[in-house]
């Protein structure tokens, strides 16, 4: 299947990041150790109905967008105005908020890549982007108008489908950049962001496309937040900056966040030949399923098989492992022990960037992929904020009959999990992301040296 000699380079990136005005601001805040998590005024409007009120949200104003509400008393955004003139009105009319971020991120990534219009619009350029959830904001108001208010279907407007369909981000980006190659979405819950990049990588590696715009998105939506709050899996009881605490013994859930991470991929020799700035080379991508029939519970066996698949080519020896690290009670430590059992207890650093901006759901994998690109560029490992105390005792799952993994508590791995930024030589980073349904994704990227 793999076309001989083809390698894949990352040549551009862009997106939307909580509290950040652009990618440079995101870079600066990450490596200044700043938190991008805040109390969310929208959640605070429902104090008796919502359990967690912190989030990594992004407002329209922060992205220089304005939502147009045809009926002032409703929150329904009929369309958006882009005050920076980045996206034409025609394209904004078919987009929900996440789609607008995806289009902005795509334009930024293409600009950084330096692709010509001819290259961008080529049959050899694909778009592979998705979000984890549906177009919940648009759908909620359409359904409310029909079911609760008894309005005719046309009151939902003629853009409910294109603004809420599952692959709306890919469709909107494709219509904006006018590529003539594939336009698809890979949807796999919180592995979506990395899964789309992985699929795009394979399209190029297998010789089906030469370029791809790819990534994941999760538009700010209280409607999305509500579902996770109902599951009682969100962090509660800490100040906003202290709420996301991967590996810490007091962690009690993840911080629901929103954002977009879009990257430009290109066949390596083509990128090299035109003098492109190679941000990273993708060494391997592997994904699998837990296969244990459990929708939610993380699988040590599934993650061990994920590592074996990723390392099958013999070219994976990371300096940094960028973990999924959501700060849920079980997930972090199963992931930790699967990492150390797979690649040993020394010689690398673990990094959980969700500690600074929370869990961006369908965007998590791609935004964290961008943090990996920035770690390669800056030659620094991001801090594991709030991982103040690691458990000195075994986890419950390690004490159950049949457990065949490491029998050390998390505190034994403190040397891998720095609370501070670490400056060191970084040549390779492995990125890990998982999703509901037992889906697992892993990608190894390297510096182009």
């Amino acid at each position: 299947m793999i076309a001989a000699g083809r390698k894949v380079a990352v040549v551009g990136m862009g997106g939307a990041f909580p509290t950040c005005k652009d990618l440079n601001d995101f870079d600066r805040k990450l490596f200044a150790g700043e938190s991008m998590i805040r109390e969310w005024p929208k959640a605070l409007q429902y104090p008796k109905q919502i359990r967690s009120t912190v989030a990594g949200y992004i407002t329209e104003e922060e992205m220089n967008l304005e939502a147009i509400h045809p009926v002032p008393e409703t929150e329904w955004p009929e369309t958006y105005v882009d005050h920076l003139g980045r996206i034409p009105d025609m394209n904004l009319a078919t987009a929900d908020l996440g789609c607008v971020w995806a289009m902005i991120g795509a334009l930024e990534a293409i600009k950084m890549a330096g692709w010509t219009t001819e290259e961008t619009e080529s049959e050899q350029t694909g778009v592979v982007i998705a979000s984890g959830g549906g177009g919940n904001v648009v759908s909620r108001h359409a359904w409310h108008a029909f079911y609760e208010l008894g309005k005719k279907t046309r009151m939902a407007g003629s853009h409910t489908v294109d603004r809420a369909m599952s692959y709306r981000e890919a469709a909107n980006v494709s219509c904006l950049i006018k590529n003539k190659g594939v336009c698809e979405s890979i949807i796999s819950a919180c592995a979506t962001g990395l899964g789309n990049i992985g699929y795009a990588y394979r399209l190029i590696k297998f010789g089906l496309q030469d370029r791809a715009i790819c990534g994941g998105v999760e538009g700010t939506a209280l409607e999305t937040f509500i579902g996770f709050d109902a599951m009682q899996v969100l962090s509660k009881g800490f100040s906003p900056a202290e709420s996301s605490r991967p590996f810490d013994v007091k962690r009690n859930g993840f911080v629901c966040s929103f954002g977009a991470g879009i990257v430009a991929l290109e066949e390596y020799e083509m990128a090299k030949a035109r003098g492109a700035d190679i941000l990273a080379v993708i060494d391997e991508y592997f994904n699998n399923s837990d296969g244990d029939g459990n929708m939610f519970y993380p699988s040590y066996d599934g993650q061990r098989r994920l590592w074996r698949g990723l390392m099958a080519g013999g070219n994976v020896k990371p300096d940094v492992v960028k973990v999924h690290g959501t700060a849920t009670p079980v997930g972090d430590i199963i992931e930790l022990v699967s990492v150390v059992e797979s690649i040993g207890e020394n010689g690398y650093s673990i990094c959980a960037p969700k500690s600074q901006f929370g869990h961006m759901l369908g965007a998590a994998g791609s935004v964290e992929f961008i943090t990996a690109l920035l770690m390669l560029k800056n030659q620094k490992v991001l801090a594991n904020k709030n991982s103040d105390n690691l458990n000195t005792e075994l986890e419950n799952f390690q004490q159950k009959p049949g457990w065949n993994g490491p029998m050390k508590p998390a505190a034994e791995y403190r040397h891998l999990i720095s609370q501070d930024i670490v400056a060191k030589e970084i040549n390779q980073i492995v990125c890990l992301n998982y999703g509901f349904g037992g889906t697992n994704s892993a990608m190894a990227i390297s510096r182009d040296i």
Partner: protein
Amino acid sequence: MENSNERKEILDGLLEVLRTVRTIDPARLEGVTEETDFLTDMNTPSTELINIAAKVEQKFDIEFEDEDIDRMGSKVKDVIDLIIMVKERGANK
């Protein structure tokens, strides 16, 4: 009763509606007459006509039957005719 003033008022109201439809290039709203065609002259996406109809209902405080919209033509005069017909239908009820 239908007269030229009424049609002019409706056209002005319709233009107000069309200015809020962001898939229509504002430049194409210059010099709109009753003979202007939404699809061929304004380059309006066909899917947008239902949005225009819904906005017209709110603007003129009327409600079209589904059949009214099914029969609606794509010229400005077709929409004006429909608005007048629906208003008269409401008045006769």
